[in-house]
């Protein structure tokens, strides 16, 4: 059993001192070349992505960016992407597929941005397209939930061959506040929501939603970045090596089957089709 309650884990997962996507890119990759824009409408700072080398090998890396100070927070909408962010991610993923680069994503978002312009430009459509695209990619895709994985806004970068989570990261259908407010009309019951939602890495590993849990230093990732980076680096190398054994269509097939099976064993099967 973990020594932290789910509610405490949510706090650790949101800790401002936790390494973010930009920090992971700095530490684990070389020659990062940032790529901006969705080529349709605008640049969305809440998704950071580009080409980099991982132990010498070109990869595409994409993640949510929250920003480190208020000015950056505002520029990045506190890590809540609009449709342009997801469309930028799609553009980068298509390129990765074209050039045969593995894709590594870092998940850390409260959710997709619930704004007027975001709706106007098709937030739902953008996320749906990301899910559909990721499900059929023929390059290796590894996703790591590093902080909070909030709803469809997180999933849109996480349809991967391997989904890993840091030990104290959380991943859920909605933020605990939103969950409490929808089900009990009372956002202040978020603590209670944390305990029923099964949102911890350990719960999700047991439920077959994630394939690996990465140990954090004592007290959480924010206490020792270097140790966290070492763990993530080792996990990425290992998973990449194992995915390299699968070729193109087999990668898409493995990913499809993994997500196809989620929740399948829970719902009883129907009768034979007519």
């Amino acid at each position, binding site marked *: 059993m973990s020594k932290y309650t789910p509610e405490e884990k949510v706090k650790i997962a949101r800790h401002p001192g936790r390494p973010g996507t930009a920090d992971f890119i700095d530490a684990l990759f070389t020659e990062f070349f940032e790529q901006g824009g969705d080529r349709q409408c605008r640049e969305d700072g809440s998704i950071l992505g580009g080409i980099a080398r991982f132990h010498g090998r070109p990869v595409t890396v994409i993640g949510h960016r929250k920003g480190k100070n208020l000015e950056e927070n505002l520029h990045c909408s506190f890590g809540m992407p609009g449709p342009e962010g997801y469309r930028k991610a799609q553009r980068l993923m298509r390129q990765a597929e074209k050039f045969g680069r593995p894709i590594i994503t870092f998940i850390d978002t409260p959710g997709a941005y*619930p704004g007027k312009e*975001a709706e106007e430009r098709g937030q739902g459509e953008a996320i*749906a397209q990301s899910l559909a695209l990721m499900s059929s990619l023929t390059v290796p895709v590894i996703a790591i939930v590093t902080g909070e994985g909030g709803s469809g806004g997180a999933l849109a970068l996480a349809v991967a061959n391997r989904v890993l989570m840091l030990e104290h990261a959380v991943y859920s259908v909605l933020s605990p506040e939103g969950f409490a407010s929808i*089900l009990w009309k009372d956002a202040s019951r978020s603590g209670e929501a944390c305990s029923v939602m099964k949102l911890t890495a350990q719960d999700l590993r047991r439920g077959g939603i994630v394939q690996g849990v990465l140990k954090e230093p004592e007290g959480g990732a924010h206490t020792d970045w270097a140790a966290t980076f070492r763990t993530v680096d080792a996990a990425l190398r290992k998973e990449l090596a194992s995915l390299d054994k699968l070729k193109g269509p087999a990668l898409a097939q493995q990913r499809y089957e993994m997500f196809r099976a989620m929740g399948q064993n829970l719902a009883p099967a*129907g009768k034979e089709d007519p």
Partner: protein
Amino acid sequence: MNRFFAQRRDRLLTYQAMRDKKIARRTACPACGAESESQDWHNKGQVCPRCGYHAPIGAYYRLEMILDQGTFQELEEKLSPADPLDFPGYAEKVRRLEEETGLRDAAVAALGKVQGRKAVFAVLDSRFFMGSMGTAVGEKIARCAEYATKHKLPLIIFSASGGARMQEGIFSLMQMAKTAAAIQRFQDKGGLYISCLTHPTTGGVTASFASLGDIMLAEPGALIGFAGPRVIEQTIGEKLPEGFQRSEYLLDHGFLDQIVPRTQWRQVLGRLLALHDKGGWA
């Protein structure tokens, strides 16, 4: 023998549809307030005879309006919800809704014909947990896509949903990936998917299979979006304009092919199926 079964299935559909209608029947329009004869509402498929407001209708009722007589065959009717979080009160509410609506979960799947052309249908029903998608709905949509692939049939889905079902937590979220992937596969193999959006279609359903149609259609005045209007107003701190996230607004912003009034679905779908007679099957 086949005819006998077809008649029996038809009677079953009629019975379920009657049940749906009983619930949907109304006289005072919730939109314009005008009082009209129940029969007039009924003749228009539960659309207000005065202002054209489209009242939500049940899944069987919708299928009965659209399908050729004697062609309805329900698919995967036994799929029912799981309770992976052991969420307090969920199992009881599921049972109560089953009794009230005759549904096993928020989606009904069927094989049927429109103007003589066969297709696979899935219809969401907002009376069951606001049409939200949990494991059973996700599984049903995925199986519909697979069934349609296997038999090289077009797929038509009517959405009406509050989004992912909170009570099944992360397992509901994963249904977004599952359904989007299943639809993508079906389309990659050449299948035609017509997505029909009805009031309301929001959240995780908008952000997965509902937005992926080769053809995107919606009923007039339907609320369609990712975030709900209340959440957006809280976030941006201002009132949203009249008509925001309604079908007409989505049409203006390029997210729909057309808006289809309820009484015209049969005709429009029949025409689209005829135009894709051979499908794109490889």
